[in-house]
């Protein structure tokens, strides 16, 4: 509960900080401090040392997994603000409001990591999405940003409609919005004739969640929105929000899969393969690195979906690890991307000469995204694949996945090629040594996790 309450409060605080503080940097500092506070509160909660216990009437349910995941998200946000704070300031005038919105998003993620019913799921998603519509359109004069905002909003609202229809049908079948009920029905799904209403509802729910985590064929908003949104917020959206979405997805379907029977795996593998295909294949031919990353995030989502495919303990660990690895790498690389004026591949030519630190850390991030060993990304993918193999899932989908992973190497390494092997003079914004230090730390973290992933997981298991 701490996270929800405090994120809301911090949001309000940020709103006022805009009025009270003149200097933008001061606002950023406030945001950082309050994020640290939020993180510590959440951790305290997860260690159940100090936490507000409100009787939520089983609408919310806090378990260690969710809280830990939430703290990962908050920590990712913290890193994001630390690296990109200056760029957030550059985005527009009302910096404080952006931070406020970010905190509201965090409130939404906190709900999504602890919801115990469709009602809170719905609210959480909405609380998470609405600020994002705004952040997407933050660059008001930039038509791309406008377009992105409009598209995101319309499609988001539409998917909300589908979500609600799904919820309604489920409610019709079960007479309740609680997860357990459908779970219990699922338990006895074998005996009683499966309720078609519930199935229709679940499928619609599945679709709308796929939309949220941008899984094909419901991914279409992703490239346009990520591309159009201000890069800072893109990196936030692509990491924190998507991870939260995944957690909700996992949490929602953990127990309901059996209702759908065999078609569940079929639908899921269909979605997974489609996602990997669209993500990787389309990314190959992009000129703009930002857009390439948008597609790559789709392909990453494809990998994360494996956690859903084989929902076992390895999958849970895997999604944790994946969230960490993916957030670190993506935030890190976006931080570099933002510094470069030209987002095309040629814009990166000769970066290794101009800014060796950026280039080298960039290589680490990209390798982690590609899943090369010695980086966190490898173990993320490794856990996902092993969870599938462990669940006795059919091997062919794993093989397909690794083949697409090999394709993903293509576009990630294209960036490396232009950074290292091509001549050019990239235009780069001023780089502070603090920023470099931050990058190096993130890269170091990625490599450490890449060598010893157990530190993250042990932390999770205490």
């Amino acid at each position, binding site marked *: 509960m701490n996270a929800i309450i405090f994120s809301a409060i911090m949001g309000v605080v940020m709103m006022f900080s805009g009025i009270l503080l003149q200097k933008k940097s001061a606002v950023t500092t406030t945001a950082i401090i309050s994020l640290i506070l939020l993180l510590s509160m959440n951790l305290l909660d997860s260690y159940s040392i100090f936490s507000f216990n409100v009787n939520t009437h089983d609408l919310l349910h806090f378990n260690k997994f969710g809280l830990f995941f939430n703290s990962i998200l908050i920590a990712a946000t913290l890193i994001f603000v630390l690296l990109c704070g200056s760029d957030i300031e550059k985005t527009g005038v009302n910096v404080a409001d952006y931070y406020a919105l970010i905190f509201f998003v965090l409130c939404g993620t906190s709900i999504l990591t602890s919801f115990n019913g469709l009602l809170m799921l719905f609210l959480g998603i909405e609380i998470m999405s609405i600020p994002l519509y705004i952040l997407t359109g933050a660059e008001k004069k930039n038509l791309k940003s406008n377009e992105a905002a409009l598209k995101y909003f319309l499609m988001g609202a539409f998917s909300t409609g589908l979500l609600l229809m799904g919820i309604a049908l489920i409610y019709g079948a079960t007479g309740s919005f609680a997860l357990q009920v459908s779970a219990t029905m699922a338990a006895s799904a074998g005996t009683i004739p499966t309720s078609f209403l519930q199935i229709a509802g679940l499928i619609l729910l599945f679709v709308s969640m796929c939309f949220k985590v941008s899984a094909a064929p419901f991914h279409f908003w992703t490239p346009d929105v990520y591309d159009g949104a201000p890069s800072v917020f893109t990196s936030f959206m692509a990491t924190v929000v998507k991870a939260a979405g995944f957690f909700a997805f996992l949490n929602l379907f953990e127990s309901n899969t059996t209702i759908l029977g*065999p078609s569940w795996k079929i639908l899921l593998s269909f979605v997974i393969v489609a996602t990997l295909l669209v993500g990787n*294949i389309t*990314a190959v*031919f992009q000129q703009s690195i930002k857009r390439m990353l948008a597609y790559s995030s789709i392909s990453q989502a494809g990998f994360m979906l494996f956690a859903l495919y084989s929902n076992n303990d390895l999958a849970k660990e895997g999604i944790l690890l994946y969230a960490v690895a993916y957030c670190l790498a993506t935030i890190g690389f976006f931080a570099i991307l933002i510094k470069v004026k030209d987002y095309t591949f040629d814009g990166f030519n000769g970066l290794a000469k101009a800014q060796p630190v950026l280039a080298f850390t960039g290589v680490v991030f990209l390798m982690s995204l590609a899943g090369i060993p010695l980086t966190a990304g490898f173990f993320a993918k490794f856990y996902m694949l092993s969870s599938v193999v462990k669940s006795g899932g*059919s*091997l062919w989908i794993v093989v397909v996945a690794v083949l697409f992973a090999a394709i993903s190497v*293509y576009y990630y390494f294209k960036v490396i090629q232009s950074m290292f092997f091509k001549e050019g003079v990239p235009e780069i914004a001023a780089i502070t040594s603090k920023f470099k230090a931050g990058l190096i730390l993130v890269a170091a973290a990625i490599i450490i996790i890449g060598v010893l992933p157990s530190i993250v997981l042990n932390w999770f298991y205490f």
Partner: protein
Amino acid sequence: MNKIVFLVPLFPLLGFLINGLGRKSLSKSAIGIIGSGVLLLSFLTSCYLFSIVASAGEEQLQTVVTLFNFISVDAFTIPFAFQVDQLSVLFLLIITGIGFLIHLYSTAYMKEEETHHFGRYFAYLNLFVFSMLLLVMGANYVIMFIGWEGVGLCSYLLIGYWFKNNDFNYAAKKAFIMNRIGDLGFLLAVFWLLFRLGTVNYNEVFTQVANLSSFDIAAITTLLFIGAMGKSAQIPLYTWLPDAMAGPTPVSALIHAATMVTAGIYMIARSNILFTMAPTTQTLIAIIGLATAIFAATIALKQNDIKKVLAYSTVSQLGYMFLGLGVGAYTGAVFHVMTHAFFKALLFLGAGSVIHAMHHEQDIRKMGNLKKFMPITHITFLLACLAIAGIPPFSGFFSKDEILAAAFTKNPLYYYIGVGGALMTAFYMFRLYTLTFLGKFRGTHDQEHHLHESPAAMTIPLIVLAVLSVVGGFIGIPEAFAENKHWLEHFLSPIFAESTKLSTVHHLSHSQEYLMMGSVTVLIIGVILFAVNNFKKFTGGHELEETGFGKLLQNKWYIDELYNNVIVAPINSFAAICKNFVEKSGIDGAINGVGKLVSYSSRQLRLVQSGQVASYLLIMILSIVVFFIIWFNDITIMKFLNKLF
């Protein structure tokens, strides 16, 4: 048999190292002395060994000496061992003895070479002798194979000695590759032995030969014979030998006449038991040998290059030796190897001296009447010709006669064809002799002006060899003339004991033999006289254009062209197809095709992202519909998927 055995190959090896490394620093004379000195040393050592072996006589003497284990794996162990018995010691004498003479000869013949090339020459020569000794002394097939390939290498190096001339290089390469083909056969035979017997040591192989099925033996012997074909220039692998004349003449004398080419005969004689137990292979050998003998002889009839003639005669003589092996006359074959070594080396050296005098002119149509200018060469050459022609009592007569006699007992047809070959031999040899030494000189004037007898270093070997080729025959006097005077047969009997047990050779009656010898001799003399008279009055120029059959012969039956068009060219074009089409378009094309496919599909898939909200949502809705449909008939889909994976 003590460690002294190792000295024999050791000396040449040392010579090779010293000359090879010091070829820049040492002076010519030093190189010459070292080069031939080491041969003399190992010749003396071999003489000593010979004395031991000879004195040991009939009773088995411990012949195998192991140096160390070359290869030792679970399946088998291959010792680095030498075997010195009657057969190998005989070859040792031939190799080191003639080798020494030829080294000596070379010191004079190669005088004009630059010092370091001179050193290189002797290094190669020593290396050759070393490998040849390995070949002969090896106590198992692998060591023999080491020498076998070693001599091939040296002949490659020596044929291509004048490496600036690319034709020579091609000749060298041809020699090496053709030998390799043979070697492959040899190697497979060795594998077969290892597979069946788990050993390649002569003693064990020959004792366990009973364990081999007849098919195995036939296969092994055939493969070995293929090896011999390559090395000893038999049909169909003979074409490298005439080309090998590109090398310096002493090399031709040593390698391509006296020693290396007889390796095949040695190998078969060495494994005589196997061959005796494989009659089919024996017939094959006999036929091939005979065919080669005749075939080469016909070619030799029309050659105008002095060395080419000798080369083809070598091939033909080797054919006789194989005929001997084929009909089971192992002693005869070895005997002929020896005598042939004498007179053929002599012929080559004589030719060398002629060429030396004629300033590297090799066309006999431009020579003539040389007897006036270089008497010693002339006399020795004449003796050699008589020997090879088989005029009694010259050495050639005895050895060839022995083979022919054995052939007759096997199958008279062999005999008659063999005799035909002998007559041709006599003809082309004396054609050569006449054109070179008799008649009137047909060369240019300054050539005539410079004509001179060769220096002592060259004439001494000639004389020695001449003596040998005259008297060499007396170590193998046939039964017909004197009972048990066939010293060689007695000497070698332990080697061929097993085979003689197996093969029942019924000897001819003496009267028959006299008749045959007499008639053949008469015929040969007739041919000789005809040849001499015919070519005495040959005067240059006209009759160059051969026609019809003659042309065919002059062009060696167009065998080289045949090989080029039937074997080499197709392989080349096939390789070209592999390189330019299969590799580029086929395999690599497929690989790159995958990449192309990816980028193409990427370009197509981008268009789905049309940027229009409506189309996005449309696809969403449709896919929802699809989901429902999937759900409706999930069972069938499951079945399908399970069938698929």
